[in-house]
């Protein structure tokens, strides 16, 4: 342990802590920009500088380790002048049109400028990067280089965590630029639309592609506007509206969506259950008939694009099942349209997702039939939260509403799709009972829960040992996929989610860190425990749709509506 003094307060912290940690331990928050609690230290923005007695220059608090007897000042005149100067240097390259910025009100730079009473007067020549045009090429992510402060947080998550490497750093000094190589548009790169860069960006340089206007217009039209909400949304939406991480707000979201004018509010947990029926059956068929194993889940569209781009030779390992969003989209425009006697063209299907890649998935050519898109618009949690605020709805005081039938029932198995390991656990609950014919006593497969990057388990299905693995975050997925490609993966069934933590860590959620993620994860399993039905095959809505329409899992109708195909995208890498 090391003892030091910060602004006159004695503090004892562990050896190896930084000045930032030590200050935080005595309740002093030092401003930071390039620092991110989940990333390695970069120390390039310098806004966190402090004065250390005996040191010649100011020291960045994020990267300076504590030493015994240090005397630190975090707010001396010297520090304040330096920080003001740093803000001036940042604003010499940062477009100040905050009012038109997607991050207005949630921008970390804006917050620091406000805290420091910064008057936005810059003594340096102001040179804004880029040509004033935003990169709107990606259906998921909007990039505005005029806002970039070169903090490298997006670069770090894209290269180190996700190992996608769509973002590059180029040049140096004043000319430094973070973005795709050769000034390419995002859609031309290997970007897999996961939106983790949006989560990492402290300013408005990377934001979620905004589809709110289309939805507002449709809410005003004659079309029937139906909406589905994904499992993770109910544990992150309240957080996006200022409540604590992990607050469950399913009923209030339904009420809010009705108030916004959506005609029908459906539960994606239902189609998650449908996914389990299809994927579980597909897995058992592969196991029985010697199909390609290990089979890998296909719920995460970022992961799918990653596999198509970097592991095209492994596409046969992917389950052919559409994601829950995709399945629901197809069911709404067919079964539902028929049952309410409407032309699919008169139905506008919206989904609320924690995910930016779902916007890409909805636009895939495979996701339409007879000229009708399965899903017409995807809103992220961030966008729905903004719509709720725009409509002046006091989310905190809303009463809880029920989902609409016939797709208003989801099981706990569907709900846990929101967390890493959830799809695997949900599948195992159903697969176990299907194979053994016995009722599963303990539904909690805890080995596949939690935040370990790669989780493994062996499940005994009446003598047949099934080896499963779960990975979340594409850096972890790469470890498993290298083994799969080399034919050395000793697994039967693998779940992969593109985002760290699974959907609760998705790019469309409110900005997160691991601490918030664990609160969200607890909430997901709390929801599962509280639901009366916890197994997909026991969901009465699922049983009904098989009885009335689909006939059987993996049947002809299922294959037409609920399954899909993949494309080799590796030429974009070469």
């Amino acid at each position, binding site marked *: 342990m090391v003892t030091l003094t910060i602004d006159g307060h004695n503090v004892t912290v562990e050896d190896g802590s930084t000045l930032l940690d030590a200050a935080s331990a005595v309740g002093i928050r030092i401003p930071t920009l390039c620092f991110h609690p989940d990333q390695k230290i970069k120390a390039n923005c310098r806004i966190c500088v402090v004065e250390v007695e005996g040191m010649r220059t100011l020291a960045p608090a994020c990267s300076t380790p504590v030493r015994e007897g240090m005397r630190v000042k975090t707010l001396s005149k010297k520090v304040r002048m330096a920080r003001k100067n740093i803000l001036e240097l940042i604003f010499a390259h940062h477009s100040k049109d905050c009012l038109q910025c997607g991050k207005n009100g949630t921008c970390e730079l804006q917050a620091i400028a406000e805290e420091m009473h910064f008057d936005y007067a810059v003594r340096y020549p102001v040179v804004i990067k880029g040509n004033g045009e935003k990169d709107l090429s990606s259906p998921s992510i909007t990039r505005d280089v005029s806002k970039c402060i070169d903090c490298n947080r997006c670069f770090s998550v*894209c*290269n180190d965590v996700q190992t996608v*490497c*769509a*973002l*590059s*750093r*180029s*040049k*140096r000094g004043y000319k430094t630029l973070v973005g*795709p*190589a*050769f000034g390419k548009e995002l859609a031309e790169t*290997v970007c897999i639309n996961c939106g983790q860069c949006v989560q990492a960006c402290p300013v408005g340089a990377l934001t979620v592609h905004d589809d709110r206007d289309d939805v507002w217009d449709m809410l005003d039209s004659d079309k029937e506007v139906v909406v589905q909400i994904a499992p993770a949304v109910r544990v992150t939406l309240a957080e996006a509206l200022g409540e604590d991480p992990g607050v469950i707000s399913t009923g209030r979201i339904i009420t809010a969506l009705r108030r916004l004018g959506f005609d029908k509010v459906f539960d994606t947990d239902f189609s998650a259950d449908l996914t389990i029926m299809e994927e579980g059956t597909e897995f058992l068929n592969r196991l029985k008939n010697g199909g390609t194993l290990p089979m890998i889940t296909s719920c995460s569209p970022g992961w799918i694009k990653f596999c198509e781009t970097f592991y095209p030779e492994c596409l046969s390992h992917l389950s052919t099942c559409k994601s829950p969003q995709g399945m629901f989209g197809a069911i709404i425009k067919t079964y539902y349209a028929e049952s309410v006697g409407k032309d699919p063209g008169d139905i506008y299907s919206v989904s609320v997702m924690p995910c930016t890649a779902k916007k890409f998935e909805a636009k895939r050519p495979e996701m339409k039939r007879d000229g009708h898109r399965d899903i017409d618009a995807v809103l992220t949690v961030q966008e729905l939260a903004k719509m709720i605020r725009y409509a002046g709805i006091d989310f905190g005081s809303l009463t809880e509403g029920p989902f609409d039938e016939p797709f208003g029932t989801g099981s706990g198995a569907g709900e846990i799709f929101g967390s890493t390991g959830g799809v695997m656990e949900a599948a195992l609950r159903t697969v176990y009972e299907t194979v053994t014919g016995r009722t599963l006593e303990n539904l909690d497969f805890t080995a596949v829960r939690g935040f370990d990057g790669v989780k493994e388990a062996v499940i005994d299905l009446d003598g047949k040992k099934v080896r499963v693995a779960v990975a979340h975050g594409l850096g972890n997925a790469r470890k498993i996929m290298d083994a799969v490609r080399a034919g050395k993966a000793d697994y039967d069934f693998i779940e992969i989610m593109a985002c760290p933590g699974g959907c609760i860590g998705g790019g469309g959620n409110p900005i997160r860190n691991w601490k918030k993620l664990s609160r969200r994860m607890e909430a997901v399993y709390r929801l599962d425990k509280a639901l009366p039905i916890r197994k997909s095959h026991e969901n009465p809505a699922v049983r009904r749709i098989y009885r009335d329409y689909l006939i059987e899992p993996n049947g002809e109708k299922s294959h037409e509506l609920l399954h899909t195909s993949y494309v080799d995208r590796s030429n974009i*890498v*070469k």
Partner: protein
Amino acid sequence: MNQLSKETIDEIRQLADVYKNANERMMEVLLKMQRLTNNCFDRETLGIVSDAMGIPESKLYDYITFYSRFSTEGRGKYIIRMCKSAPCHVCGAREVAQSICDYLEVEPGDTTDDGLFTVEFCECIGLCESSPSVMINDEIYSNLTPNKIKGILDCYQKGVRV
């Protein structure tokens, strides 16, 4: 855009193998590759290099745009690197640079119309004791005067060894 021949691509692959066996030789390997590719790594070329070396394009782009000896835009066969640091400057580097630009009818940063030379300024090349100095590709020319450099360029133009 570089149109690389099959032979060039094979040579790039061989160099990539050198890197794969010894990662610390990245700079050397890339410099050698650049010599094969019109002194530039354009989009197509970098794609081939990335594939051969097994390094993502984004990381190679980071690397080659950081160091001034690499370029992403097409350059001449010979890169004239004129030192702009203080010791060369006080010994008459400005006049030498002016003489080069006048003789070749280009501005610093430009490539001659015949594609033979690209003229660039660079930081100190460590030859202060015999300044002013320039580098033409890997060759060093020191104690230059405006007249001397013209003679050297003339040899390059005629394809005669200096």
